[in-house]
């Protein structure tokens, strides 16, 4: 499948990019190459620090002041040499021909300017039209990116738009000049899966209509599989493997690609089936080029030659490029990542099924400050109902997964249970005892029983406290140990999270994200709790590190018989770790199911939509139809009736808008809150699943 030369849009050869750090030039990207055809969607995958954004910036000729392109590089765009262009020529290219959609649309839009004028400004710069004509072009573009009510959107300020809408505006702004090359730098990172699916769908459509070449930069293999025709895998600034997406995802020959694919939990995969295969170690820091293979330190197949000689990037006749000494052996099936399926642990505690925690009608309403108009009219705005009547039961040693979009109230629910926020109403029982509202009122015994692992490992540890002190503190404070015993126990805890004893004297600044999260986990386990709340514990980590942390959490749970409340927007991760899964929407639960039941019909229509939106890391299973619009209603003005009816693809009529749906029992503890009877749900969903499989 060679692309004719005339179709070649972007050609990069031997691109080496360096940053000046402490008076030395350190290469961040080495010998990068790329051939992008018109109309092609090219994926650039890598973990943090792999140099993917640096490449994008170099392409735009927009490297930061301490960066430079090393000599010998070639960068041709539509036959023109990009590196030789003057600043003025580049400006003309930025305005019209190469467009970049950045990761954080909220930060890329000017917060002090209404959306309309901003877009018009870029239209003026790009195609030189003004006035009514430009406005018409903008409306057409807003319509193309499926912005509902474009006139209204144009009059709003960026902060008044949801993340998904902001990203659409950015895409509209980029596409209005019909650019030849579009660079998308993690455009859906930070968005909900549902929104992500909608945006991906949109990008796919818009590209199909145009002849735009797309460079899609991301760390998310699922997204790449969903969108890209060809993929380059970057590691430590070097190309590891480059191939058509279909081949790459089904017949990867590079150990790193294999490792990445193996470390992703597939939807429906559970810790009881098989452990994930994490890649050992951490992504490398920016450093001088060594003579070894960049991946050798973490590679399961590394041999002496890998540590002594950097493998060349070999271009194979079928179009694949690969940088590995041992790819032939992998291709021929002589090397396998060791599948440690035996380690999939059986729970030692499931038999007891002792009730640990019960939550009844738990409610948290945040009052909203009154405006002057409210004061004058003696009214008060309705409160934000973040958690609005949740009933939940958790057994000892059980892992309960809690999923839902952002804004569904998951984190507030967790904070109520742990006591960081005071509940408005409802009951919380632990081991049959009523638990007080806030941490300040709770006794040390209760505090010791409920601990928490936070989302962001950067902030979870005090930067001025050593690892030893961080872990010792709960031992002394909550378990009443004397300093000597606490020291020994802290080292034992470190070992249990697979960190060496010499980590005890390090400070958080010296640890990688994954290591910090391990320390945070050790700290949470220090008080020997019955329940640990994990609020998105892996979402801030690199893909290759996530799997190791998930495995660790699964092992510690089985060893200690600890119950988890595991919150995540990543359904595959929840499905992997949880025994039971609860689906939350606008402050209420809509479905509770055992892990065996959740991934097959019947689903609640909301759960169904969430699942459909997961970008599966397989180009052969693309999410075709998106089921949900991207606007989650405000928790201050929750729709009446079934609160999901405004977005429900299976709504059956007025009853959904008027009456609260009943809980329906689907057997074996599987309950669904919906007006549609279980049988009908099962039938409809089985049918649509079969239909999708036939496509």
């Amino acid at each position, binding site marked *: 499948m060679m692309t004719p030369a005339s179709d070649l849009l972007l050609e990069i050869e031997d691109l080496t990019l360096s940053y000046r750090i402490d008076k030395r030039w350190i290469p961040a990207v080495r010998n990068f190459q790329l051939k992008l055809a018109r109309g092609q969607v090219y994926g650039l995958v890598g973990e943090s620090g792999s140099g993917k954004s640096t490449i994008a910036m170099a392409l735009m000729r927009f490297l930061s002041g301490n960066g430079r392109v090393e000599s010998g590089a070639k960068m041709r765009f539509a036959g023109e040499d990009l590196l030789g262009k003057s600043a003025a020529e580049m400006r003309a290219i930025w305005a019209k021909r190469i467009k970049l959609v950045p990761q954080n649309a909220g930060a890329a839009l000017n917060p002090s300017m209404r959306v309309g004028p901003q877009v018009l400004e870029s239209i003026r710069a790009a195609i030189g039209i003004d006035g009514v004509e430009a406005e018409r072009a903008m409306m057409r573009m807003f319509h193309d990116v499926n912005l509902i009510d474009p006139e209204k959107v144009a009059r709003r300020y960026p902060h008044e738009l949801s993340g998904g809408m902001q990203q659409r505006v950015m895409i509209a702004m980029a596409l209005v000049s019909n650019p030849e090359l579009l660079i998308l730098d993690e455009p859906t990172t930070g968005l909900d899966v549902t929104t992500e699916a909608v945006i991906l769908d949109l990008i796919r459509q818009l590209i199909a209509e145009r002849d735009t070449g797309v460079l899609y930069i991301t760390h998310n293999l699922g997204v790449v599989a969903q969108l890209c025709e060809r993929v380059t895998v970057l590691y430590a600034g070097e190309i590891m493997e480059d191939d058509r997406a279909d081949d790459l995802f089904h017949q990867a020959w590079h150990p790193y690609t294999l490792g990445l694919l193996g470390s992703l939990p597939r939807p429906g995969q559970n810790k009881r089936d098989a452990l994930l295969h994490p890649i050992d170690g951490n992504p490398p820091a920016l450093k001088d080029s060594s003579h070894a293979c960049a991946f050798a330190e973490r590679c399961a197949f590394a041999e002496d030659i890998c540590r002594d000689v950097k493998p060349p990037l070999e271009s194979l006749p079928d179009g694949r490029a690969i940088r590995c000494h041992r790819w032939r052996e992998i291709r021929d099936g002589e090397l396998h990542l060791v599948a440690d399926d035996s380690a999939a642990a059986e729970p030692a505690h499931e038999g007891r099924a002792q009730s640990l925690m019960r939550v009844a009608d738990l409610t948290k309403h945040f009052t909203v400050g009154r405006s002057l108009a409210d004061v004058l009219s003696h009214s008060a705005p309705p409160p934000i109902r973040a958690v609005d009547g949740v009933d939940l039961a958790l057994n000892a040693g059980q892992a309960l997964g809690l999923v839902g979009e952002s804004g569904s109230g998951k984190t507030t629910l967790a904070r109520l249970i742990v006591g960081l926020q005071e509940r408005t109403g409802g009951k919380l029982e632990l081991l049959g005892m009523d638990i007080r509202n806030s941490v*300040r009122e709770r006794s040390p015994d209760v505090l010791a029983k409920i601990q*928490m692992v936070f989302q962001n490992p950067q902030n*979870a*540890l005090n*930067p001025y*406290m050593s690892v030893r002190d961080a872990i010792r503190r709960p031992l002394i404070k909550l378990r009443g140990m004397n300093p000597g015993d606490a020291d020994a126990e802290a080292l034992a805890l470190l070992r249990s999270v697979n960190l060496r004893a010499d980590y005890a004297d390090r400070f958080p600044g010296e640890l990688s994200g994954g290591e910090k999260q391990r320390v945070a986990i050790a700290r949470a386990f220090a008080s020997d709790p019955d329940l640990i709340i994990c609020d998105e514990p892996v979402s801030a980590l690199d893909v290759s590190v996530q799997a190791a942390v998930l495995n660790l959490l699964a092992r510690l749970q089985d060893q200690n018989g600890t119950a988890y409340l595991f919150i995540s927007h990543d359904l595959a991760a929840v499905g992997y770790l949880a025994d039971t899964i609860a689906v939350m929407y606008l402050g209420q639960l809509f479905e509770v199911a055992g892990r065996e039941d959740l991934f097959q019909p019947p689903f609640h229509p909301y759960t169904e939509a969430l699942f459909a939106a997961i970008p599966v890391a397989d180009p052969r299973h693309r999410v075709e139809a998106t089921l949900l619009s991207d606007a989650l209603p405000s928790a201050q003005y929750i729709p009446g009736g079934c609160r999901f009816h405004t977005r429900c693809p299976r709504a059956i009529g007025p009853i959904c808008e008027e009456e609260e749906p009943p809980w329906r029992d689907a057997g074996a503890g599987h309950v669904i809150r919906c007006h549609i009877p279980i049988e009908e749900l099962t039938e409809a969903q089985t049918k649509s699943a079969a239909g999708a499989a036939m496509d």
Partner: protein
Amino acid sequence: MLPIGQRITASLQMIKALLRQPASALGTLIAAFFLFLALFGGQLAPYPNPNDQSHNARVSPTLDIGSLQFGEHPFGTDRLGRDVYSRVILGASSIFRIAGLGTLFSVLIGSALGLLMGYRGGMFDEITGRVIDALMAIPALLLALVMVGIIRNMDFDIGSWQAELSNNVVLLVIAVLYVPVVARVARSATLDIKTREFVEAAEIRGETTAYILFREILPSVIPALVVEASLRFSYAIFLVASLGFLGFGARPPSPDWGLMVNENRGGYYQLTPWALEFPALAIAILVIAVNLMSDGIRRAVQKSA
């Protein structure tokens, strides 16, 4: 808390970063020179008694910059026959003591107050915040004059602690004036830090407020406090000199720079201009030097953050 070793390396790194900028390095050097004078002025001054009037009055400065000859009275003598050079050297110690200790007290009290305000929030923060706003709305010099005026006019038994206080009234004024400013800085830094998850982790452990304030939050606030302290110090020097000049600070015949400027202005300036110029020059150089230094500290802290 950081162990001593790490703390020293961190401080050394900061000092290195501070000295890399030529302007702030110069400022630091000059400030250090004045600190040296303050500490060892008694040994350095040719006439250790500042009120020694045994010299000829109104002698012109004998300092010759070209040949670096100091002569008998480098800065001349004033109309009472006191050696200006010795008085300027000996004046350094009082300005460092008053401005330095005043700043130290204001930073200690202000940061504790700011930490508590920021962490507690609610009514406590609201009320304390308004009081602070009110205090800061009054011009600093005016407030200082009022406080000095009131306390100076009270009668205290000689040797009582009130009398001791009254003697150090300028020091007290500086502390009171700068507590609100420092508290504000500490409060805003605390507001940022307290939302970090390690603080919540401490709350979940049931730590006391004092532990959370001083062990969890304070270390992260210290960089901002160091910058503020250096800035406050430069303002304090200025204030001490101003009060001395207005006659509300040190009393005659002490060798206070501000006071010396005051004593030698007006008609005396025609007679002995050097007796005014040299202390004035000392004030200006020290204030500028400390300002340059604090600017460098701010840069160094920002860099390491």
